[in-house]
């Protein structure tokens, strides 16, 4: 195996495998990037109450070399996305990306149909990232379902409602999403025996409310995904995990973490 002169270097045959996944988290200008031997993680935070993580595992890349243990930096995600898409969507664009210290430059080389673009993006030091401490050990309720059945519900959520209330229960109504807007309250229920529910592990009834403005951006990930896992832990924290199929048939994950709305009094 040849060693790279860069601290980090990775190649991808089709840049769309990365850009479609990142498109689902690109609702903020900046992201924190974590590089390890397992792959890349892009994290976007919202008001300290919500966090989205996109995982691009090492297996998605044609080659992946990393000569350190971990690397963290802050990246202008909007600029990064423009660069990934710079050669347009006519054909298949290949990507080589690399990172060097102390320059702290993220380099990209994109190629399509004989045309080559080089990009050099300055990165910044990363701020502290919130650890939501969400562990599967403390999960009270978990449902895995096909994304398509939630799409309409999520797209049509009443924007005049401050919150989205989620009920998860081992008994009827199993899973219920409710909003409370100007026109009144709306609920959608998803029975456990529906075709779209692939796995149902609910142990206790939980009802929690989450600020709708925090959850709305997760719609992008929902639209790109084939499956979603909805989990709630003892504290009422919500984890939405989206399985996204990439162009070349591999899978990638985006996870959405959200703290419950504290103004809610039961």
């Amino acid at each position, binding site marked *: 195996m040849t060693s790279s002169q860069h601290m980090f270097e990775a190649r991808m045959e089709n840049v769309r495998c990365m850009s479609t996944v990142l498109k689902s988290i690109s609702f903020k200008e900046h992201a924190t990037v974590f590089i390890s031997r397992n792959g890349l993680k892009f994290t976007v935070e919202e008001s300290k109450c919500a966090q989205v993580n996109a995982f691009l595992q090492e297996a998605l890349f044609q080659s992946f070399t990393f000569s350190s243990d971990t690397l963290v930096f802050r990246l202008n995600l909007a600029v990064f996305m*423009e*660069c990934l898409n*710079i050669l347009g969507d006519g054909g298949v664009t290949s990507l080589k990306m690399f990172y060097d210290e102390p320059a702290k430059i993220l380099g990209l080389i994109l190629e399509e149909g004989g045309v080559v*673009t080089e990009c*050099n993006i*300055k990165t910044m030091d990363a701020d502290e990232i919130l650890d939501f401490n969400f562990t599967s050990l403390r999960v009270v309720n978990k449902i895995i379902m096909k994304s398509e059945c939630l799409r309409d519900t999520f797209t049509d959520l009443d924007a005049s409602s401050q919150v989205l209330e989620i009920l998860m229960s081992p008994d009827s109504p199993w899973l219920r999403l409710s909003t409370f807007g100007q026109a009144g309250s709306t609920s959608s229920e998803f029975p456990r025996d529906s075709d779209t529910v692939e796995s149902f592990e609910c142990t206790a009834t939980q009802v929690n409310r989450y600020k709708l403005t925090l959850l709305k951006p997760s719609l992008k990930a929902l639209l790109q995904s084939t499956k979603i896992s909805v989990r709630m832990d003892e504290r009422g924290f919500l984890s939405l995990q989206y399985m996204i199929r990439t162009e070349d048939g591999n899978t990638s994950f985006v996870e959405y973490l959200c703290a419950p709305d504290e103004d809610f009094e039961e």
Partner: protein
Amino acid sequence: SSGINAEYGEYRIEGKDRTGMILMNISPDNLAKALSNAANATSMKMRLTKKQVACLSVEIAVPTTDGNGQRIVTQDVPISLVPLIHWSEFEDPGMPEIHMSIYFPPLRRLKNLLERMRNLSNLVTIQATWSGEMTVSVRSDLVTTKTYFIELDTPDTDDGVDMTRASAEVTVDIKKLLLFGQSQYLAASSRSICNIVHGRSLQLFLLQDDVKLQYYLPAVDL
């Protein structure tokens, strides 16, 4: 400008001077609106007339819906005639001595690229060499990008080209350059020529059939 006899069935003009030219000012929006009926026209006639004001009267013959006849739609587009003494203001600036002449890569490709780059910077630098290579780059505090095109043709050049430079470059306003690629008239087959006066200006020629569109962009001081 266009090859006169190729396009028009009938052409008659009596100009003010020996060149037989008439200069008029006209609003492109008004003319475009008048011509918008012409998509299905069987024929069109343009005449200088005087209604309340001087006008370019555009008469368009459109087939009737029953297919048996035609109706004439006439639109009068107001114009103002330019007096002879002001004609020197409208003279073609002429070709400056250029340092580089090269065909652009396919315009749709270039347009996609420029639209992405526009989100990164206001200015774009175009550089080309006589061996058919062109780079298109932007630079900002955060990012630099450079796109390489190779194996581009260079047009036959005549006088007015200073070939002493192996390469030439110029930096221009990216939005203005994008305007050039905006026209719906651009077919995939249209070619365009990029002439560079190093550090001074960019001159673009779009060639399609008998129509030649010429566009000057001055360099922007960095």
